[in-house]
């Protein structure tokens, strides 16, 4: 009797340990890759998250702009999908939380320390992503101006990392390859050439 219970208990605990540790890159890659056929097979839906930003504009403030005049209610599946992401993130950060601080590459850690970013306990650096930081010049630029660029750029490009880099490339679309390359080029320029000046503020 008891050995069986012990075995089940042990199995359950080791399973939780595996799930609670940071997952390897391939595990996340598999889940993200399978999202593409899952959405297609469940209802002919094309994976793309930045479209939600557009649907939000269309739903809340269309302001007679042609770009936002369409039947956004047909797209509410995407709001449900995003709701699931928020719920999944909540589960992962509570039930499956990793108690250890985030591992940061030594080179990056050294660089960040020069800008007074020393707290590596969370997924996001508390000294940058916080309400206090938001009201400093550095935090305002990184959180508010950065957000504007994400929203403006993704729609201008016709999609973001999910719509172009995952869904578009999965469908072998050349325009998506161009967009993905430009995402990366923009990121390299910002992170290496511009961000050091912003973080020094």
């Amino acid at each position, binding site marked *: 009797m008891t050995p069986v219970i012990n075995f089940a208990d042990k199995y359950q605990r080791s399973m939780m340990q595996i799930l609670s540790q940071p997952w390897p890159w391939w595990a996340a890659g598999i889940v993200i890759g399978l999202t593409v056929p899952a959405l297609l097979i469940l209802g002919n839906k094309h994976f793309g*998250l930045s479209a939600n930003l*557009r649907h939000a504009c269309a739903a809340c403030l269309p302001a007679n702009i042609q770009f936002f005049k369409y039947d956004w209610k047909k797209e509410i599946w995407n709001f449900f999908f995003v709701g699931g992401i928020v719920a999944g993130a909540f589960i*992962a950060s509570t039930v499956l939380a990793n108690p250890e601080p985030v591992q940061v590459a030594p080179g990056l850690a050294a660089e960040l320390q020069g800008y007074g970013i020393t707290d590596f306990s969370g997924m996001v650096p508390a000294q940058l992503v916080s309400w206090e930081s938001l009201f400093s010049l550095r935090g305002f630029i990184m959180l508010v101006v950065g957000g504007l660029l994400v929203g403006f750029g993704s729609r201008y490009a016709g999609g973001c990392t999910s719509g172009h880099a995952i869904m578009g490339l999965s469908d072998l679309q*050349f325009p998506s390859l161009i967009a993905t390359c430009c995402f990366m*080029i923009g990121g390299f320029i910002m992170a290496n050439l511009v961000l050091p000046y912003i973080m020094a503020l």
Partner: protein
Amino acid sequence: MSEVKTFQTPVVPDPILAGPTDFEVRSIDTMCINDSQLKHPWWYNFKYSLVGIFFGIAFVKAEIISWFRIQEMFRLQSFHMYGVIGTGVVLGIVSVWLIKKFKIRTIYGESIEFHPKRFSRGQIYGGLLFGFGWAMTGACPGPLFAQIGTGAFVIGVTLLSAIAGTWIYGYFRPRLPH
């Protein structure tokens, strides 16, 4: 319903400058435009929430939503994000190829449709601007939602800002080079 499918040529010569109908919105911006013609009760959408839950858990557990991982990616200090995106793309390519090859249908029997994307200069200009924002916030739209889910509520401001950015784009769209 069938009139939508047989509709072939756009009424207006340039859908970017003129007002797009639903069909033209699709042709100029195919991302995320609903292809299903079925009408279901609203709660049928919860199946997409389930996919989202798995997706959100993977996002957090593999630290894709971490600002640090994104900085490492752009500084070539870690392979992690390249592995994630690479695996996802390879699996996506295989999946889409299988769906096309075996003409796999949706669970409701509809045929799965793909739309070729049209090149526009927006993919270059917009792509670069998006890249700037991605490196600054350390998050693309998906992780923005997930970060809020982990309790980083200040990212709600970043999300509102991203919605504002999308709105500004919509406002200036006719005057921007495409």
